[in-house]
């Protein structure tokens, strides 16, 4: 009996490894191909010149000004979108949990809507709105912050809602209120520290999504990293692929960090409880 169990466990372990290896290859082979494309010369020699240029930022800015502008825009968009998403979402979700629990399903539905609407359809809806945005705020790529905040809602909402589910927000905020906290203090000193990993998760997801977004920026005629990469592809294919690869690796690292943050949270919850 023990032999059968051990054999089954070995089989399961082998199957798991096969799945991991196949999936790993599925993701890594294209990345490896991209890397090879950036370092292999037409005559078969290998050179890291593209990567040297990529990491020499002053030279990159002067050689590829559009790419530099796109990278800077995406960097700024990341910061603005994360900030706007957190400022909008965290107090709203907390308030709904505390005071308007009957609205929770409605908020969830609204937040998940962008997931079900294709980006191209979103743009059709956003175009007339952005005509007004351009009229009032100009055509800066930073105005994409509004569209991106809508776009990240499904992921950010899920992450923050899951974080709030892990704590008794109502009791904690009432305890803080009874001790003399204003609502701002409740949010800043009680709720936020206890959903730190959820906020980090939401932020990482936002970073990954904003760095990879092309459709909305392109159709609204704004330049961000992906639009610049696409334009660059017409003049310097190797640099274009190098930038894409760097963006992908950055997104992978962020997602890896996210899963690490989630694991830390889980470990904290499993901490040993002592008996009295």
């Amino acid at each position, binding site marked *: 009996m023990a032999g059968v169990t051990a054999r089954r466990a070995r089989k399961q372990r082998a199957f798991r490894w096969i799945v991991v290896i196949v999936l790993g290859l599925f993701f890594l082979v294209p990345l490896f191909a991209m890397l090879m494309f950036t370092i292999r010369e037409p005559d078969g020699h290998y050179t890291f010149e593209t990567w040297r240029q990529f990491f020499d930022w002053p030279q990159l800015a002067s050689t590829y000004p559009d790419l530099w502008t796109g990278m800077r825009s995406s960097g700024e968009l990341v910061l603005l979108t994360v900030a706007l998403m957190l400022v909008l979402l965290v107090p709203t979700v907390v308030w709904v949990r505390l005071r308007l629990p009957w609205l929770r399903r409605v908020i969830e539905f609204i937040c998940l809507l962008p997931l079900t609407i294709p980006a191209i359809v979103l743009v059709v809806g956003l175009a007339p709105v952005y005509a007004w945005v351009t009229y009032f705020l100009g055509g800066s790529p930073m105005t994409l912050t509004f569209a991106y905040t809508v776009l990240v809602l499904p992921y950010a909402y899920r992450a923050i809602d899951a974080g709030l589910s892990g704590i008794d927000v109502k009791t*904690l905020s009432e305890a803080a209120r009874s001790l*003399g906290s204003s609502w701002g203090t409740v949010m800043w000193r009680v709720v936020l520290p206890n959903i730190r990993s959820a906020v980090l998760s939401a932020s990482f997801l936002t970073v990954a999504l904003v760095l990879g977004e092309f459709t909305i920026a392109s159709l609204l005629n704004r330049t961000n990293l992906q639009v610049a990469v696409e334009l660059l592809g017409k003049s310097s294919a190797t640099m274009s692929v190098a930038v894409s690869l760097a963006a992908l690796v950055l997104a992978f690292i962020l997602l890896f960090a996210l899963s690490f943050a989630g694991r830390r949270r889980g470990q904290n919850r499993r901490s*040993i409880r002592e008996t009295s």
Partner: protein
Amino acid sequence: MTFQERPLDRDASSVGAAGGRDTVPTPTSNSVAVHLNGLRRRFGGVQALDNLDLEMAPGELIALLGPSGCGKTTALRVLAGLEDADSGRVLVGGKDITELPANRRDMGMVFQAYSLFPHLTALQNVEFGLGLRRVRSAQRRERAGAMLDLVGIGTHADRYPHQLSGGQQQRVALARALAIQPQVLLLDEPLSALDAKVRVQLRDEIRRIQLEVGTTTLFVTHDQEEALAVADRVGVMRAGRLEQLGPPDEVYQRPSTAFVADFVGLSNRLPGTVSGDRVEVLGTALPLVPGAASGIGSGAVNALVRPEAVDLAVDPDGRGRVLAASFLGPTSRVSVAMPDETMVVAQVASALLPELAPGTAVRIELRPVPVVVEAA
């Protein structure tokens, strides 16, 4: 938001032995009277508070007792400012605080659910309210440490809530509530999540500390034993109103209504006949609780008789037959069936249990303690 900083009245070393029933609560200079006047609160179709009036003397501990949904927690939350009343006033120390938000009411509260901030240690939790009152760091630490010592958990100051047991967490929550030297201490079923032994220990500690600190305290519970054990006065609530408010012995021994008699302790419902200020039950004339028969008049009633007011004697000619007995430790409960199928429960010394086997014929005698009656 400004707070008046007050020095601690005592340090941990001055804490004396546990206070008991005979200890008189001594109001301190911080003790205030609390008045709830005509509070009403409706949730949808449910009238949670129905013109509730309650007066608490400075330093007094009142326990609100009642079944689920009777409005006791709502009353406490309205006093805390966590719930708004539809009408009525809340006065603390003579000041009307009805419109004041919860964070400016200066009340310490211990919740039923564990409410310690998970990202802070026990000491930091206790320091939290002091920090909001801008107490200096060193003084804050000293006060918080003294409070943790007061609740007997000073050695666990550096532990996080997840490293503490339920009882320890509630002790820290109590220390946190007391550290800010609140005008009123509010306890919302703080023991209900704890196991029986810790519960009794902590209950006694709460009473000891309340007597030491002298803070006017409202204790909400659905556990009658808890309420009777710790309170100066017990308020029994029903459907948003106070059914009776009085010292624990009065509520238990002279319940003003059938509901109170039924809810606080066990009662036998025995058929009887009212005549004047007495009711005849199983051949014994029992005195009525004053006013108990008002609205009923004379005639057939059900008398609510406590099991400890029923004596059993083994008698071959007795009309009762023992049905079953439950061992409860020093005492036991014996169920006796009468010929007319009335069931009588008696509380007897467990030493008598061997004589009261099922089927034994017994004679029932009722002690002449005042009883409440209800219409038959």
